């Protein structure tokens, strides 16, 4: 039914989605907080640039990323100078692509959330001697739990489902850069509808189960919401 390549693809997809989500959170939590508090004039421009990956078709983003990651490209030269490897067709390349592509989906909900943390709550923590970092960790993050979960699930799911970008920069090498979304797409393209159905159903069931667990956990836990 499913080939070893398919299993490899599933494994790789989960690995990529998980890593991407982690990287995205690591980027977006601090940057979102910074954006939420910044009064810089340039802020709307930054926000617009972050939103850009939304408006370009994934394949096109993939194409431009490929251009940049190619050995002579901007990123490629930089990378080549630092490491003895090339980005395209590597896991790292895929990761970079996924992160850029999913960035707005994680950044925007987080920033939006951060903008709503009541200032006086942070002031209260400050009077108790909590430094900005301390406040961020002990007040901002716990109060943002729901949003972080929403943002992470958007990011994770989107990485699983994305395929234009990774197809382009990944090169679809089985066991290295072939992802489940591509395998599924291949089946459809190739009129192997039966296998496509199986893969799609598997993906959906997995996602539904994961998401249901996530959402029920999230709605059961009390005390995490600021405004009850």
């Amino acid at each position, binding site marked *: 039914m499913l080939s070893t390549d398919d299993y490899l693809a599933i494994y790789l997809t989960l690995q990529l989605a998980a890593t991407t989500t982690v990287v995205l959170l690591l980027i977006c939590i601090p940057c979102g907080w910074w954006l939420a508090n910044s009064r810089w004039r340039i802020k709307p421009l930054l926000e617009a640039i972050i939103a850009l990956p939304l408006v370009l078709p994934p394949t096109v983003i993939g*194409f431009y990323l490929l251009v940049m*990651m190619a050995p002579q490209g901007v990123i490629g030269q930089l990378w080549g100078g630092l490491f003895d490897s090339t980005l395209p*067709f*590597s896991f790292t390349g895929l990761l970079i692509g996924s992160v850029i592509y999913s960035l707005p989906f994680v950044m925007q909900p987080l920033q939006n959330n951060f903008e709503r943390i009541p200032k006086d709550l942070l002031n209260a923590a400050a009077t108790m001697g909590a430094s900005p970092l301390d406040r961020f960790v002990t007040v901002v993050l716990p109060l943002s739990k729901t949003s972080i979960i929403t943002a992470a699930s958007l990011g994770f799911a989107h990485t699983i489902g994305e395929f234009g970008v990774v*197809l382009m920069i990944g090169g*679809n090498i089985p066991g290295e850069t072939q992802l489940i979304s591509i395998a599924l797409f*291949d089946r459809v393209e190739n*009129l192997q509808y039966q296998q496509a159905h199986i893969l799609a159903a598997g993906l959906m069931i997995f996602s539904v189960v994961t998401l249901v667990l996530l959402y029920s956990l999230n709605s059961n836990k009390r005390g995490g919401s600021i405004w009850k």
Partner: protein
Amino acid sequence: QSLRVAVAANFKPALELLQPEFERQTGIKLRLSAASSGVLFAQISHGAPFDVFLSADVDRAEALETLGLVVAGSRQTYAFGTIALISKQADRTQDELITDISNSAVGRLAIANPQTAPYGVAAQQLLSCWQQQAVFARAVRGNNIAQVMHYAATDTVDIAVIAQSLWPGFNRVVQQPWYLYPVPSDCYQPLEQQLVILQSSRNTAAAKRLVAFLLSAESQQVIAGQGYLQAQSQTR
């Protein structure tokens, strides 16, 4: 009067070349929808309102015929696709090319995905013919032949197996020089591309005129100039 033509991506440049002449001759406007043959097949089998379908292979045209979605007897071969090797190095002999291929690192050789693209099957045949099956596993796969061209165009690979029909367009856009090495046709099966007129067409007459036009000697000449073999050249 207009015709909606679903055309496999690889043939779109050739068809666009022929389009003005056809429109001038017949006064019938062509509206081209290009996608991979697989996507077009899925759409047509679910009711897409096309008049003519130019597939990149035989299978999908045949499958539509089996489904009874085509005008009986309309399935015909309109061209044979050929492949070629391109390399960044000039003046390589065939043996040197084979050595280059066998020495290529992971991700330095690009071919189309045999599972989705007919050109991928041809590329696979070529590799077997040259005893390079092992290389196949570490080749970069474009999901269609156009993607293979992107890899070459961005210099992320060193060698690629491409559709010869795409070479002129490719050569126009690349900055770094690439070199074309035609491949002996005994190493792979040229890709027979078939067309069908769709049952649902409301303008079968015009569709037939397009088919006739494509199969005309003049058109075939143009098609051959685009890196295809003429439909009549091979008989099965």
